[in-house]
């Protein structure tokens, strides 16, 4: 069972690393399922943080994918990253009492312009202005203007993976601002 998962994940990952988008997305989806189980088991009291951690690790796996050594057990590599992010989570939890807010809240705000377009847009801009450029610009270009990640990267001069990180971290920060926690 474990062996099968390892070899299946590895196949998807290897093809994905070569630049096959669909396979890479399937790898990340299966990985997310696996990580959800891992974190649920370790954070039974903090169910709300599980999805957050899953996303954090997916992002970390994506950004560190060049450090996987061919031949190394893929699950060992993934779990080392998951453990590292979990330790980070416990440290932050000990400091703040609670980790960041679920990201869905930010998504709702970005969807809000349907209801009261002008008002919501002004509020959103106010919030966006508080973000650093590396998070604000990716959100404006990708999430509001609907550009692709690579177009946004070209426009801002950032790397594509920096744009992706910016969108993710920026939405997270927005959610926290909306709740007034930061």
């Amino acid at each position, binding site marked *: 069972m474990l062996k099968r998962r390892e070899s299946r994940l590895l196949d998807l990952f290897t093809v994905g690393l070569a630049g096959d988008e669909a396979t*890479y997305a399937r790898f990340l989806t299966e990985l997310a399922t696996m990580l959800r189980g891992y974190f649920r088991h370790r954070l039974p009291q903090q169910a709300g943080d599980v999805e957050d951690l899953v996303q954090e690790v997916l992002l970390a796996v994506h950004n560190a994918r060049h*450090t996987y050594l061919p031949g190394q057990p893929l699950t060992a590599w993934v779990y080392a990253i998951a453990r590292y992010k979990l330790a*980070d989570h416990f440290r932050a939890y000990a400091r703040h009492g609670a980790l960041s807010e679920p990201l869905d809240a930010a998504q709702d705000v970005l969807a809000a312009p349907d209801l009261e377009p002008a008002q919501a847009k002004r509020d959103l801009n106010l919030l966006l202005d508080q973000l650093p450029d590396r998070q604000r610009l990716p959100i404006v270009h990708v999430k509001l203007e609907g550009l692709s990640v690579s177009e946004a990267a070209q426009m801002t001069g950032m790397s594509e993976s920096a744009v992706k990180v910016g969108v993710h971290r920026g939405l997270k920060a927005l959610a926290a601002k909306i709740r007034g926690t930061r």
Partner: protein
Amino acid sequence: MKTDDLISMLATGVPPVDRHVVSRRFGIAVATGAALAILLVAMTLHVRADLADVAVTPLFWAKVALPLSLLLGALWMATRLARPGMPIGACWPGVTAPFAAVWLGALYVITQTPAGERAAAVLGQTWRVCPFNIAVLSVPAFIAVFWALRGLAPTRLRLAGAVGGLLSGAVATLAYCLHCPEMGVAFWGVWYVLGMLVPTAIGAMLGPRLLRW
């Protein structure tokens, strides 16, 4: 953001991954660090005048062997620490055996030295400046090695910082061999080691802060 949205964002426009990033980053770091350290030796300390003469003696190469073996051991360990989930147990002899060897050699030399001259054998002529010089020479390599590590994915930050520091110390000591006139094993066993432990300790201290990702 929903996890599915994150996944589709991450998977869009992924370029094929470069397999040699780890070795390339460390290669650049060690080469840059060594070049700058040698340049510093040549400009501020001067290369020892009798280098060509001592370069043919086995004792000179025994001296070079200490930082060189530590450089290789630390480099190997650092490249493994830069990848998540790599066991590093087999790396420990690489970064400890050179110390053990130089201390055994030093002990032997000391026992062969008459009691009255032992202190002089350990202190040499330059013990006051040696660790300081090595620590200063390690600065460029230290910055370069931390740059290399920051682009990778160490998960044991304090250890990665320490080994990165040791690597920069070994690079610096290797360059310092071009200048240092000391030819006593006991001297190397104390002052070279001390000089290399300075960046090692600083690396262990700064690792958790500088290498977080």
